């Protein structure tokens, strides 16, 4: 039945369209002019529409910034994150400024020089000075951004350590994360996928003495203010360990180890007191109560950000940042590999 109705509607739609075309054609014939020719009236209309579009675009940009910027990630919870965010803000201002300069000019010119029969365009083919200016000016702006960006990048990727970083392994597999702490010696024992067996889920080499004190955990706890060196491995396909609140991300690639280091700077308890975060949580909980879902408390997250299969969209783990003491207490509760195997 729905099938027949759909077909009837489609046929009617096509017939209507055909009739409409006839009307277009007849009316332009009546006006003694060919439909496809662009008239002054068309130019006028379209020119105004262009201007209107330009204005609407700028207005909606501001509206989106106003309405949706608060939905973006709150302040960074790591030391280097602050640096990244300030680079981000500056780059963002530059590109928004360029956007606000170039788009209005484009739509303004389209409107301003909309065609008319009695007008003639200028014959203006080039101007070396102008072209020089708009090669050089972007080059200078970009040079500044490049230098700033490269400095930030090398600070982030090759941090200078005053304290020895805690070594933590993040092991990815379809579709979950496993965490291994390096234990007393702060050195991870050798591990390989070939050694995975029963409870030995990350494949540590039990003969490697370094591994005895390693601890496997199902949550990430980090002490605030201490650098953490994450070492990433994967068991099956490429995953990506994405910790957006810390402005941190690194791929987990089977067959090799990658790493990323950062220093958490805000505890979970503290970030929950942040005004922006509280507003965010309030908004989210309002939505959730409406839908009858359990209420939500803000947590730092580890997400998978490289497509890895059907469960990719739900490969997550909480990260808890806490004081040194809380961390030490939590870690002491975790069993060592030697104890579990």
């Amino acid at each position, binding site marked *: 039945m729905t099938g027949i109705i759909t077909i009837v509607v489609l046929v009617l739609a*096509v017939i209507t369209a*055909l009739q409409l*075309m006839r009307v277009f*054609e007849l009316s332009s014939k009546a006006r003694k002019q060919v*439909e496809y020719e662009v008239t002054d009236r068309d130019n006028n209309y379209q020119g105004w*529409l262009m201007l209107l*579009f330009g204005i609407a675009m700028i207005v909606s*940009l501001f509206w989106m910034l106003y309405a949706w910027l608060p*939905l973006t990630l709150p302040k960074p919870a790591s030391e280097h994150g602050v640096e*990244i965010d300030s*680079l981000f803000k500056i*780059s963002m201002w530059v590109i928004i400024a360029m*956007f606000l300069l170039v788009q209005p000019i*484009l739509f303004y*010119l*389209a409107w301003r*020089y909309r*065609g008319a029969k009695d007008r003639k*365009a200028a*014959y*203006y*083919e*080039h*101007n070396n000075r102008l*072209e020089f200016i708009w*090669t050089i000016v*972007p*080059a200078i702006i*970009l040079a500044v951004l490049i230098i700033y960006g*490269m400095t930030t990048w090398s600070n*982030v*990727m*090759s941090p200078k350590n005053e304290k020895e970083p805690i070594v933590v392994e993040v092991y990815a597999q*379809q579709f979950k994360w496993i965490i291994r702490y390096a234990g007393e010696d702060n050195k991870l024992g050798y591990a390989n*996928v070939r050694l995975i067996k029963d409870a030995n889920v990350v494949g540590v080499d039990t003969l490697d003495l370094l591994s005895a004190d390693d601890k496997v955990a199902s949550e990430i706890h980090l002490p605030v203010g201490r650098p953490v060196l994450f070492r990433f491995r994967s*068991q*099956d*396909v*490429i995953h990506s360990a*994405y910790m957006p609140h810390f402005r*941190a*991300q*690194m*791929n987990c690639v*089977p*067959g*090799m180890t*990658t790493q990323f280091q950062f220093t958490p700077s805000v505890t979970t308890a503290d970030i929950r007191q942040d005004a922006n975060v509280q507003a*965010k949580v309030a908004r*989210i909980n309002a939505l*959730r109560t409406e839908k009858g*879902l359990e209420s939500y408390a803000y947590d730092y997250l580890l997400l998978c*950000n*490289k*497509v890895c299969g*059907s*469960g*990719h*969209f739900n490969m*997550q783990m909480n990260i808890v940042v806490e004081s040194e003491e809380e961390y030490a207490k939590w870690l002491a509760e975790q069993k060592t590999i030697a104890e579990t195997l």
Partner: protein
Amino acid sequence: MADHAQEHAHDTAHAEGHDHDEHPVDNFWTKYIFSTDHKMIAKQFLITGMFMGLVGVFMSMLFRLQLAWPGESFPILETFLGKWAPDGVLDPNMYLALVTIHGTIMVFFVLTAGLSGTFSNLLIPLQIGARDMASGFLNMISYWFFAASSVVMLTSLFVETGPASGGWTVYPPLSALPQAMPGSGAGMTLWLVSMTLFVGGSLIGSLNYIVTVINLRTKGMTMTRLPLTIWAFLVTAILGVLSFPVLLSAALLLIFDRSMGTSFYLSDIMVAGELLSNQGGSPILYEHLFWFLGHPEVYIILLPALGITSEVIATNSRKPIFGYRAMIGSILAIAFLSFVVWGHHMFITGMNPFLGSVFTFTTLLIAIPSAVKAFNYITTLWKGNIQFTPAMLFSIALVSTFVAGGLTGIILGDSALDINVHDTYFVVAHFHIVMGLSAIFGMFAGVYHWFPKMYGRMMNKTMGYLHFWISFVTAYGVFFPMHFTGLAGLPRRYYSSAEFPIFDELHDINVIITFFAIGGGIAQVIFIFNFFYSMWRGPKAPQNPWRSNTLEWTAPVEHMHGNWPGAIPEVQRWPYDYSKPGYEEDFVPQNVPIKKGEHAH
């Protein structure tokens, strides 16, 4: 075969300038199917590309439903996807499959073959003043490789385990191991076969374009009198010849890993509880090979659209394109740089941080020639006498999206910033605007502008306007908001964001995006209708409907083998003498001799 030989002999006869009237009547097969005429092959590329485009856009509408209302039931999903959407709820594997095939189709089938295949074929011989491509036969073969690859890609939608699902970049090991996801089984094999055919066709086509532009230009058509379209097609073809073989090698090694037990990309893997014996390979090798093609590929998509825009904007501003030589220079600069930036897709794969800096540097450099192009387009409008044909509207839209999307590239190209936005919806917003929208708009501009040349009839302007405005508004409506979901940390290729309460408040944005996506998708019906209606019923095209300078408008409206009856016109000037002082008309075609005392460009 006999037919081909005859066609071939015939083309040669043309080249020698024999009489054309005694052409044997084409039958259906030689005229529409096994044609070696560049104009017909262009139309074949266009129609195939349009069909693939409809499939690709339709897929995006399906998966947008899931993204706006995750887990809800839509009977339409079950109608089209059957067991992949039991009770109308999309299966996560099918979600990934749809995204993957959508991306693959849009990038390769629509905007590489559909765009550059159509317009390189149509315009290269007509605008440089040649009777046909250097090799009509190879040209035909190139289309048939493309057609075959399209068929294989579409077939892969129907295999039991579903089509390839690892994303359009098909990174191994995910794409190499059928145990890792169902789409990596037979679907992935078909994907690889299809892409191999595709690369074959694309290479043959590109070589033909290059040879034609270099060798078959008519008298007087020096390189600096070439329309910018031709420059763009030439450089695009060169990019293709240099980069597609690398994709092919990446695909071949993947085929070996999948079916012959090699370990180019595989090492130390246990998947679905099974330990694999592969050792010593590296998935990163694949990423390097892929992106060595992948980045030039985005310019393979974009440059033809920019070339088309240059032509359309100059013609309809009734003004010379501003900074012709700077435009050529920036095309060349972009092309060169596009080979040394691939690493910006791999900042967080664990590459040496120093390399990251190098790629940041080269990537941000590309912004300079791109900015020059944008400014030159804008200055071309200044003091123009703008004729708003639908093609012109789309070209202006292209400049707008090129700027809007290019600017966010400055964020993504910066390795330090990429750490946090890599693979989020910010990236999806960026590449759709700068590459997807710009190229699609360029393609529409091309179709509206050269439709009279292809079909000898005119498209309906009013419908063109309607199509343009709905498309332009919805396009921004779909992709602009994605910047914000990306900045909220939402990863791409997520079947649903509902597992993370933190993304709950993005729901409204996702609904808005989906409404725009559906609206924009449906608006394409207007275009399709206009296209076919005008093809059969549209008013007959005049000789030079847009009062344009380039040579194609001197060829007769009715198509003929060899393009021009009698001698090929000789080129006397550059293609952009619009509104030149000293001339009554506001255009001076390229074959009009320079007057005494006239200043040639």
